């Protein structure tokens, strides 16, 4: 199986900010009433105990997407389980007033130091998140996913690099700048 490609997975070309969805239905479907869909996405995909700032990963290349996806799985029992996510364009964040500058770049909580540098903690109000989700939904954005088959391929490739997110005990990652 081929390695996952950013545009195919997310439905948009990079750069994009991705957020993992606990469940794919959190993003709803195109046939759903838009107000209910936005409310569900914000309540279930962002809120609950999670309060601002919100965790997102900025990916520009296929490699960044793969490493971010593996980073998201690095603390789960099965590192090849599928990853459901939604993507936002930087200009969409800007349009609703969410600032994603260098100051918001904070290391992610994953086992991959390389991918952790792609992580941002973004401050946002519920109104801003609603506007953001509405923008993406009205642009026809679907939930993206790396399938288990995709993740198996990513994992195999990362094991050869001795990636910390892929191995329980890596003797040292071979990836440049990790």
């Amino acid at each position, binding site marked *: 199986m081929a390695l996952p490609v950013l545009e195919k997975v997310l439905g948009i070309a990079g750069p994009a900010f991705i957020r993992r969805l*606990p*469940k*794919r*239905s959190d993003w709803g479907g195109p046939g759903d009433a838009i107000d*209910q869909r936005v409310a569900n996405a914000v309540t279930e*995909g962002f809120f*609950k*105990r999670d309060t601002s700032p919100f965790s997102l990963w900025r990916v520009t290349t296929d490699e960044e997407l793969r490493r971010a996806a593996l980073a998201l799985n690095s603390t789960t029992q099965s590192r090849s389980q599928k990853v459901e996510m939604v993507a936002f364009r930087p200009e969409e964040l800007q349009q609703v007033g969410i600032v994603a500058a260098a100051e918001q770049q904070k290391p992610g*909580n994953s086992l991959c130091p390389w991918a952790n540098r792609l992580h941002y903690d973004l401050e946002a109000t519920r109104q801003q998140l609603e506007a953001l989700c509405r923008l993406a939904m009205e642009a026809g954005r679907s939930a993206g996913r790396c399938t*288990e088959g995709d993740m198996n391929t990513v994992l195999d490739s990362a094991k050869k690099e001795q990636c910390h997110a892929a191995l329980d005990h890596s003797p040292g990652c071979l990836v440049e700048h990790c």
Partner: protein
Amino acid sequence: MGHAIFSNQIRQLLDAPAARIPALRAEAVERLRRARDPFRYVQTMLDRCVARRSEGGLDFAIDILSQAEDLPLEYALEFCKEDSTAWGKENTIGYRPNDDVWFVLLRSAARARANPLECLALMHTCLAAGSRGMREAVVEGLYDLRTAEAKQLLSRIAAEDTDPLIRKLADDNLHDLEALEQ
């Protein structure tokens, strides 16, 4: 005492740095396996993890419970007795906290592989619920179960469910399973 320690372990797990998570999870699994009153432990874990769903809480709960052999299915069968009385028949897409509980229970029971036939029967029962979240839990549970009967039911849902999103999820899961077999 054991329950309080377990409860604290789950709290720590949800806030732990990545490097600590595998060890904390293994400790929680061990404590759950040894529990004299495991249902109480499961309920505590579900309460905590569902409340933190947007921070990976559902995955944490599935990872722990799926290593507890028969327990997820036994708990699910008991939980079904009380929860099924609140299931509506009408299709709804609004959030229902117990949908997340079912998402964890059905996936854990399927991954634990303790009793695939009984697990499948429970999933059939859960399909009667009107909420999208419940039927999504079934679709994901069937994906994890991976038996021929589970694939048959996925195929039926992909063709017949009244909700286009559930049909799409079932269809995607079927394709993903086929791709894994190639």
